[in-house]
């Protein structure tokens, strides 16, 4: 398979970024929007072409999807001739999941580019915005195509920075600046784990290369890597490394307890939330685990996968509960994202490697794909609503279906998709996840099922609250968004309907051998039933204006308050950062430095001055003093000599 054209997929957005970034002031906004869209459209077309080539023409050999790699050495840690040749490569790796991610990233990014032309119209930083979007697209595409741990780490950091820049896009707003800082620092902390994990793997495995690390024996039953050779505290060092790498993934994917940055990240412009904080960057953690899946599965008999599964399941439940009580529509969607990513992690965590047992892996990737479509749609729809009513809060909305028919319909489609109603996309992928969970661990299955009900409920609370419910009096009559904004909505709605019919299990599996997927009717019926129950509940509570919901909430009392305040996690973090790090570590160090370290040095200097002053006194300039000293000295020396002589 010829891969050279694939290089263009990330490089075109990079070129666009450089162009728009350097000539930021010279390029007219109208032009920069077109440049951005055109660049991404080219990348998207190439991605689709690559996917077609890979999946249908030349990717499969003897029923197994092959991995294609093209790379160059970027930096050497040791000499090429040395026994343990450590180096960083730059290159592209093509396998089923990277091709699938190319499709996801380029599609959503293109839609967001198109949408932003309408949404950001008239903004001062219009060109800058497109430059940042291109930077993000470049970084994310590079991340997806990475051939080794270091390369993925590098692009990982770059997406983090693009996210920082875009969250803080309205940089004169203090809340946006705070949110951007928070997102960067929290993920940076998680990346510390990732980095240490990489260092461990580099040292013990002697390579960073995905293919070498993931190599499995021909029977598909064991890792070629000798992971059991060195242990630390009773576990293989590789287990520790994988836990630390998962920490990095959990940070990026907003898994509990590293999730706190995601809701705040909603300070960024809405298209950014759709692109970065819903569809692409936040699933990087899932992608990372999937990328290293053979390692995760075989090292220590999949011990770390259990952690992945439980963290995923808990995050998914935790976020779904919080989402019910939030009143900022973007925050509801943010927690929903966290919850759905928890699903994907859960699915990976319960997956096996071989054949149909690897259904969890497939389901996770499937859900990643469908979720990207409908969640981006939800965010873009929310953006369209916010654009119309100039508020993020549910209390300012209601009855909007009359004013915004396209937004209404597309939002409904997305809501049905995420609620798992057949035949929309979310139904198919969620069903597979629940099947996988049921086979491995029934407890996790029931959490998953419960979350499905919650999801349907909070999503329709949102839907009814925005488009039905009370008839709000609007100062400006809301109107439907322009075509540049509605086209992406329609396209993504279309995807949210059909994406579920893609026979994913034939393309994307853990061992790269396709299998035939089938629907488990009992499971499906249960899941759909739960979802419908949630929708009906929301319908009763929120379809018409009434106080049922409020009464219901109050019956929970304390719990409702805790949930509304997101279980006070922000406060805990503020306590840790402000009180502990800032006041109990940094401040004492600064004080210690001034008072003692510097004080000692000053002390030495001052003592020298003091001594010299004392000595200076001897040089008084008075003849009698000198005479006295002279005579005194002679007498002393004479005595000493006499003493020495007599002995």
């Amino acid at each position, binding site marked *: 398979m010829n891969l050279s054209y694939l290089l263009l997929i990330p490089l075109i957005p990079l070129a666009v970024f450089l162009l728009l970034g350097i000539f930021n002031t010279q390029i007219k906004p109208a032009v920069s929007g077109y440049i951005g869209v055109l660049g991404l459209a080219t990348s998207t077309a190439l991605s689709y072409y690559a996917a077609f080539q890979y999946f249908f023409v030349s990717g499969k050999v003897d029923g197994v999807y092959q991995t294609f790699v093209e790379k160059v050495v970027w930096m050497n840690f040791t000499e090429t001739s040395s026994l343990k040749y*450590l180096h960083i490569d730059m290159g592209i790796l093509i396998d089923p999941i990277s091709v699938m991610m190319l499709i996801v990233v380029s599609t959503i990014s293109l839609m967001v580019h198109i949408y932003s032309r309408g949404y950001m119209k008239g903004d001062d930083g219009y060109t800058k915005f497109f430059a940042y979007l291109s930077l993000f697209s470049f970084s994310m595409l590079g991340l997806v195509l990475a051939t080794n741990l270091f390369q993925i780490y590098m692009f990982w950091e770059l997406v983090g920075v693009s996210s920082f820049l875009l969250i803080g896009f309205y940089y004169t707003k*203090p809340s946006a600046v705070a949110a951007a800082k928070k997102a960067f620092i929290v993920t940076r902390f998680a*990346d*510390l784990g990732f980095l240490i994990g990489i260092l461990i793997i*580099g040292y013990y495995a002697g390579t960073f290369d995905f293919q070498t690390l993931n190599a499995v024996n021909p029977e598909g039953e064991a890792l070629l890597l000798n992971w059991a050779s060195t242990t630390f505290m009773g576990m293989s060092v590789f287990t520790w490394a994988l836990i630390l790498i998962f920490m990095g993934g959990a940070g990026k994917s907003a898994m509990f307890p590293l999730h706190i940055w995601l809701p705040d990240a909603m300070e960024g412009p809405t298209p950014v939330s759709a692109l970065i904080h819903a569809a692409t960057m936040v699933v990087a953690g899932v992608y990372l685990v999937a990328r290293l899946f053979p390692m995760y599965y075989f090292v220590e008999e999949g011990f770390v996968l259990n952690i992945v599964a439980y963290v995923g399941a808990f995050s998914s439940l935790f976020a779904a509960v919080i989402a019910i009580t939030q009143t900022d529509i973007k925050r509801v969607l943010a927690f929903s994202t966290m919850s759905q990513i928890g699903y994907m992690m859960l699915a990976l965590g319960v997956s096996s490697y071989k054949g149909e047992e690897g259904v969890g892996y497939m389901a996770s990737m499937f859900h990643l794909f469908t979720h990207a479509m409908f969640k981006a749609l939800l965010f873009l729809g929310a953006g369209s609503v916010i654009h119309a009513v100039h508020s993020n809060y549910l209390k300012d909305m209601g009855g909007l279906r009359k004013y915004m028919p396209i937004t209404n319909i597309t939002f409904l489609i997305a809501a049905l998709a995420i609620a798992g109603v057949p035949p929309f996309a979310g139904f198919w992928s969620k069903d597979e996840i629940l099947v996988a969970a049921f086979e491995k661990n029934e407890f996790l299955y029931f959490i998953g099922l419960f979350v499905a009900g919650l999801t349907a409920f909070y999503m329709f609370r949102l839907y009814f609250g925005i488009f039905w419910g009370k008839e709000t009096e609007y100062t400006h009559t809301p109107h439907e968004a322009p075509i540049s904004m509605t086209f992406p909505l329609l396209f993504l709605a279309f995807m949210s309907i059909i994406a579920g019919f893609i026979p994913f299990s034939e393309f994307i599996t853990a061992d790269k051998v396709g299998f035939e997927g089938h629907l488990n009717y009992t499971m499906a019926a249960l899941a759909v039933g739960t979802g419908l129950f949630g929708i009906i509940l929301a319908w009763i509570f929120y379809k018409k204006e009434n106080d049922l919901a409020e009464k219901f909430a109050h019956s929970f009392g304390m719990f409702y308050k805790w949930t509304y305040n997101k279980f006070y996690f922000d406060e805990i973090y503020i306590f840790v950062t402000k009180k502990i790090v800032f006041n109990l570590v940094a401040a004492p160090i600064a004080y210690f430095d001034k008072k003692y370290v510097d004080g000692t040095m000053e002390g030495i*200097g001052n003592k020298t001055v003091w001594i010299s002053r004392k000595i200076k006194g001897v040089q008084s300039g008075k003849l009698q003093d000198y005479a006295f000293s002279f005579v005194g000295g002679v007498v002393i020396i004479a005595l000493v000599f006499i003493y020495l002589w007599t002995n």
Partner: protein
Amino acid sequence: MDILSLFIIVPVLTILALVFTKGLQQARITAMVGSLIQLGMASNLVIAYFKERAVNDSIMLFTKDMIWFDHFNIHYAIGVDGISVALLGLTAIIVLAGVFISWKMEDLPKEFFISLLVLSTGVYGFFISIDLFTMFVFYEIAVIPMYLLIGIWGSGPKEYSAMKLTLMLMGGSAVLLVGVLGIYFNSNADGGALTFNILEIAKVHIPFAAQKLFFPLTFLGFAVLGALFPFHTWSPDGHASAPTAVSMLHAGVLMKLGGYGIFRIAMFLLPLGAMEWSWFFIILAAIGVVYGAFGAVRQTDLKYINAYASVSHLGLVLFALLTFNKIAWNGAILQSLSHGLLTALFFALIGMIYGRTHTRDINKLGGLMKTLPFIGAVYVITGLAYLGLPGFSGFIAEMNIFVGAFENPDMFHRVLTILAVSSIVVTAVYILRLVGKIMMGPIIDEHHHDLPKVTWYEKTGILLLLIPIIGMGVAPIWLSDMIMASLQPFIQGVLTH
């Protein structure tokens, strides 16, 4: 004339030319031309070095040896390897950028540029020497002008800062001199004459007792300049009072002399002593890494923040040197280069901000991105590069250090390595605090709504520094391979003793 001695002759000629100039215009043009020639020479040297290295595998290239002081066998001996070539390049870039940044130096411009060039002569001489004594002389030439530069052209409590800086560095020099003489008087351990020549001493087996005694002296002498904890306190005060170009040169180049000296003299000549003492100094270095970073979190003066950040980043250099690992050593040199460029750029930008707003207090600054878009954008880029973003020089340096430090599998080194690695989070905290406070957010001071635009000479200075930062970060393989090839003799020195 040989290619290396030019690095001393050209600055000296520039100084002579400066003596005859009148007024700012003549002085700055002369200084600029002089430093431009130096940059040209440095680029030429890099090319010549690659060519020569392909056919010549001796440790030092372009060597030259002239007897200088017969009685003590002191020579003017020069030569370069990949490490010194890289550092010479760094010096040339920063000196030229410094001249551009001082374009509007109204006060005694002639004397200012002369002092600046004296300093750079000393630095060049230090990097090309392979004779201990000559090296020491150049070291002193580089350090002394600092006193004048801060004392005369500085701001704030300049006399105090200049005195503090000079005294602490002189204290270091005194200790260093003892160490150097100690090495000299043991250089005949295998028979033969006493010598100051580094390459010859490296072949000698200096007795263990002497190594154990003189290593800490030599190390500390240089480490004061390399801002080793707890001998770093001269640096915040010194930087805060120094004029912009001096801060740039000082943090960018002069402080690198510390790490270079430790590597080239203390560790190369006294490897056994180094191994014996490394456990102690590596603890200090690792503390410095974290301590400096936390120190920076609390500061409110832009220059103080950078000074503490330098303690942290240069602590990483010393830390890497003491791990006795080739990858980490490579990282240490790369970090010296990277930190030199980044910190010089930071100080240049701080100078521009201070020149416009007349304050360096971060609580009085805010939203500058709006009024100073170019400076603001570069400031953010520099900050991101400083916290180790891939694509910039800091990342590759840090990664080499961390990967190398991880090659020591014992628990002691593991713990220290993880401690050092964790500084990347704290770095992110203080950099983002800084960027968030002064560049983003609303404009605090209403006078800041209308600030003078960036000028051409400022832009030139910025780009001179920014381009190599990006170049190093995007395509590091040339540089890192060049340095790596020169590390072999050092590791051999450790292995064969």
